[in-house]
């Protein structure tokens, strides 16, 4: 029964599965449509052994589970790029580094289903994603602390999971500020 209108992290993970990743298929798909498949989200393919192709994450994972493909490491999800992102996050207090909207969801799925894509870097990459998330959450927290009334707080480039984690509190606090201020407009700061 739908009681809770907000998203759970699992809902967001589901949305993230529509994002595209590169795979190397180990099969070919001989169909009339040039060996591509038509899905609600678009047409994907063609699938030929050893020819990299872009597919939605859900399809990549489904194929990988059945040993029909190898998922490739996305170019933003490697040690150098992430280390750079982490440094930037740390150096700029007010600005958030631009990461894929579903970076946490995608990396979680890949860490689980495409471990071998990361080779020996797996632990290091995992750790970096964790650190980035930690730094960003504490920056968000600091950003929200300046709220003094029913007004805006500028937080750009937040990811889906980050928006989601602050939504219940932030929305509730804004509602409360609004409620209190609306009875007494002159008391606004």
């Amino acid at each position: 029964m739908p009681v809770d209108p907000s998203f759970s992290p699992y809902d967001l993970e589901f949305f993230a599965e529509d994002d595209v990743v590169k795979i190397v298929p180990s099969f070919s798909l001989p169909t009339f449509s040039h060996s591509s498949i038509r899905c609600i989200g678009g047409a994907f393919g063609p699938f030929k052994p050893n020819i990299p192709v872009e597919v939605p994450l859900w399809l990549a994972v489904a194929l990988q589970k059945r040993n029909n493909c190898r998922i490739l490491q996305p170019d933003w999800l490697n040690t150098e790029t992430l280390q750079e992102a982490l440094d930037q996050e740390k150096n700029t207090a007010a600005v958030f580094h631009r990461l894929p909207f579903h970076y946490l969801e995608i990396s979680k799925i890949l860490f689980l289903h495409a471990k071998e894509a990361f080779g020996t870097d797996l632990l290091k990459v995992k750790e970096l994603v964790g650190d980035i998330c930690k730094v960003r959450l504490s920056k968000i927290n600091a950003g929200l602390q300046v709220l003094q009334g029913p007004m805006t707080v500028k937080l750009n480039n937040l990811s889906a999971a980050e928006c989601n984690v602050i939504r219940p509190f932030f929305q509730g606090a804004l509602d409360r500020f609004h409620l209190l201020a609306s009875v007494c407009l002159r008391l606004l700061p």
Partner: protein
Amino acid sequence: MAGGAVRGARQGGDYYSLDAVLAEETLIPCMFKCGSRGVGRALDPSSGAEDVKPRAAAELPLWMLQALTSRDMLAVKVPRWYGEKMRRKIQAGAGVENLRLRCPYFYDVALALHATDGAPSVADLVISTFRSRYKEILTKAHSNESPKEMARIEALLSVEEAALFNAGRASLDALNRWRFGGRANPTRTRAKRRLDGAPVNGSR
């Protein structure tokens, strides 16, 4: 007439809300401007008289006020938890005040009073209270305190603040649970067990 006005101002959608209903039980110090026949003992069990005399003091629940004040039959006084003493404490920093003890529905009662005809408004006081406590609630909700410390903090908050505090905690917990493993919706099984009183048996 009646009842409507207190919730009418703001709480129209809260007719069935447990919290809204309970907030309106808060007793507010009042003074009858006119006498009232036969309700003395019900309104004040300690009074032996059947009738309420003019200028008699009474503590009436919030839900009773508007029907009487709108007809100029009742004067509402400022409850002590919005009094001068509280005002001074807020100015000195409201972070440490135990609102739950003073008035569990600190903000909603103030809003309802504000909407009541002829009642003194304390909106400015509660706005500054919320403004000065907001940051603390946010920081603590997202901190890594022990469950015991969290419970201690929650006990200091008004019901409205606690709802916010717990919402903040729950979403962070949900994120961490998702990131570091565990099943989807683990709370559901717990809820199930408590609902039917029997242990959960297996999958469905």
